[in-house]
């Protein structure tokens, strides 16, 4: 108890040092327009006391936990739960936009989260399975988006015709990037992919005659439902006109929601299928030990390239959808922070886990949006939440791995045995 007090006292002391310049003084306007500096000890005392109490509570909590018999956390319970969480989440996602009275903004937020889920699943192939740290994933997102925008404006193609083309083009650039850089490993690979992401963005910004430069491109068609457009004007040839309902904004948003849901599920399905097949197993083996792979006759370069290309393809699909949804794109949408967000989703979810990506995308995208009302404290709380998650679950939400094949009953593999991949 005395130790706890000492520890908490030390924390409070550091809090005093840190907060004194911020909270201990108040900068105010004087009567004659000059600035005044007044001490505000009560605010400072509050912060220090809060730190002290929080530290005491934390220590007490730890003491309580260590007293309880340590439960063997073999992940079996988590795995059993995961079996049900997936279908339940899917069911929720399917009925979500159709709930009566659902505000359009919420459906739109759902579309945004699903876009990131799809990007996360795409990047999960590269980072989670193959263990290649890719900091430039946004490049493929941009290639997909601009492919659609350019094909639509120059050749008058619709969303559904452009979708596969955008995926193919992104995969092509994935291979182009992959060929020279996949000899690099770890940090070096990360730096080159980071540079690649920036190069793509800079080319888009500066190639004004083709891409419109910083002004972006405008007027891409939204996806249509078997040729039926979503238009507020109604009339023949539109969704509302065909079904004889009043045109409402949520109809289009809900349709976009289902389109991205389907695209994301396609990504998930392909990944889950591949994981149980030689290619997916080779990716995971590559993450575990590249040299051993080579000694077993696996063509390391080609295997990495397929991971890059397939990951890039799904990034391209997502980019195409993004452009169609916004009907406006500019280089500002494809900055490094996007790559970082998607990577954070993958890492936070537990690299390699599909369900983890969904949870992490909800946290990473949902929390900042839902906390809009807290204004300036939004990012503070968000940062705190991320730090807390990584302290509590350092290998992500779901860090166990289910074997791709088993003779008897499949046993879950804990994170401590899994390699994280060195590129």
């Amino acid at each position, binding site marked *: 108890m005395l130790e706890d007090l000492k520890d908490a006292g030390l924390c409070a002391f550091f809090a005093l040092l840190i907060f004194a310049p911020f909270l201990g003084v108040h900068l105010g306007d004087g009567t004659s327009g000059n600035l005044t500096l007044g001490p505000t000890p009560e605010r400072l005392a509050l912060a220090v006391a809060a730190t002290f109490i929080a530290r005491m509570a934390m220590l007490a909590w730890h003491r309580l936990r260590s007293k309880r018999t340590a439960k063997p956390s073999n992940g079996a319970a988590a795995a059993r739960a995961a079996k049900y969480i997936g279908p339940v989440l899917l069911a929720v996602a399917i009925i979500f936009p159709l709930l009566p009275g659902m505000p359009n903004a919420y459906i739109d937020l759902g579309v945004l989260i699903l876009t990131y889920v799809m990007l996360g699943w795409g990047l999960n192939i590269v980072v989670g399975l193959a263990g290649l740290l890719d900091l430039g994933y946004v490049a493929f997102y941009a290639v997909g988006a601009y492919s659609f925008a350019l094909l639509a404006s120059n050749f008058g193609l619709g969303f559904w015709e452009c979708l596969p083309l955008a995926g193919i083009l992104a995969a092509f650039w994935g291979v182009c990037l992959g060929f020279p850089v996949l000899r690099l490993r770890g940090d070096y690979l990360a730096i080159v992919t980071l540079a690649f992401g920036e190069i793509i963005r800079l080319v888009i910004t500066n190639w004004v005659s083709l891409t419109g430069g910083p002004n972006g491109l405008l007027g891409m068609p939204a996806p249509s439902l078997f040729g039926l457009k979503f238009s507020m004007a109604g009339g023949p040839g539109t969704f509302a006109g065909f079904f004889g309902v009043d045109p409402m904004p949520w109809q289009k948003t809900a349709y976009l929601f289902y389109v991205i849901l389907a695209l994301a599920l396609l990504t998930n399905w392909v990944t889950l299928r*591949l994981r149980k097949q*030689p*290619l997916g*197993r080779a990716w995971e083996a590559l993450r575990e030990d590249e040299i051993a*792979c080579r*000694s077993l006759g696996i063509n*390391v370069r080609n295997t990495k390239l397929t991971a890059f290309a397939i990951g890039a393809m799904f990034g391209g699909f997502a980019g195409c959808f993004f452009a169609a949804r916004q009907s406006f794109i500019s280089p500002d949408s494809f900055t490094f922070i996007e790559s970082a967000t998607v990577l954070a989703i993958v890492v936070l979810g537990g690299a390699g886990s599909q369900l983890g990506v969904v949870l992490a995308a909800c946290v990473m995208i949902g929390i900042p949006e839902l906390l809009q009302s807290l204004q300036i404290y939004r990012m503070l709380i968000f940062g705190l939440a991320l730090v807390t998650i990584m302290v509590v679950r350092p290998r992500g939400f779901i860090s166990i791995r289910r074997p791709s094949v088993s003779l008897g009953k499949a046993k879950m593999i804990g994170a401590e045995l899994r390699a994280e991949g060195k590129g």
Partner: protein
Amino acid sequence: MTILSVSNLTMRFGGLTAVNNVSFAAERGHITAVIGPNGAGKTTLFNCITGFYKPTEGSIAMSPSLGKIVRLEKLAGHQVASKGKVARTFQNIRLFGGMTALENLLIAQHNKLQSATGFGVLGVLGLGGYRKAEKQAIELAKHWLDQTGLMARADDPAGALPYGDQRRLEIARAMCTEPALLCLDEPAAGLNPRESAGLNQLLLKIRDEGCSLLLIEHDMGVVMKISDHIIVLDHGKKIADGSPTEIRNDPAVIAAYLGEGDEDDPDAPVAESVA
């Protein structure tokens, strides 16, 4: 009949010559051992044969099947296993720790399985003969799990197995590539005498199933008992080449292991200590 013929192999790292003009041949169906003091160039020689180093000079001719010759030094790293039919294990075990023993053995059969999936496309769509290929691959994996006594651990992660089991699993994994020549880099390192005896049995069984073996080993109990042919390296040069009995009595080998200067001691008991 020669399965592997190394001629005038030299490997230099900058100014250091790790392997100097070494030539030898390994017979098909034999266990050939490479021994030598620490730093003699054994592992470098191994890495040249298994495609991890490109030799500076010389050639390595491998005969994966009768009447066929493959020049290993001209192949890309991964082709040594797929085309040359040479499999290897590592001095420091390199298993896929986060994957189960069974998965480890299936990855070893990657090339065969991958072509059965139509390079991934048919596999994703569930078409083609992948199921059958996978069933066969699992049968082969089971065979080697059985041979190495790891059947009960098939679904356990490789990283969680005890050291001796990991050694045997690595051999099983190499055998799942269906090699003509299995190269083992110190397979008995860190094994207790009982495990070591078990390893001898396993290696003899592998030989009797028709696979030739090349092994680096420090444990003379293993080398002298099971080898058909021994090559001795010292300072990158081959100093002796012959049957275990010949090697045991070779003065150059004794000198290399125990230092020179005991020529004037006629009944040198050193041979026993080498053995």
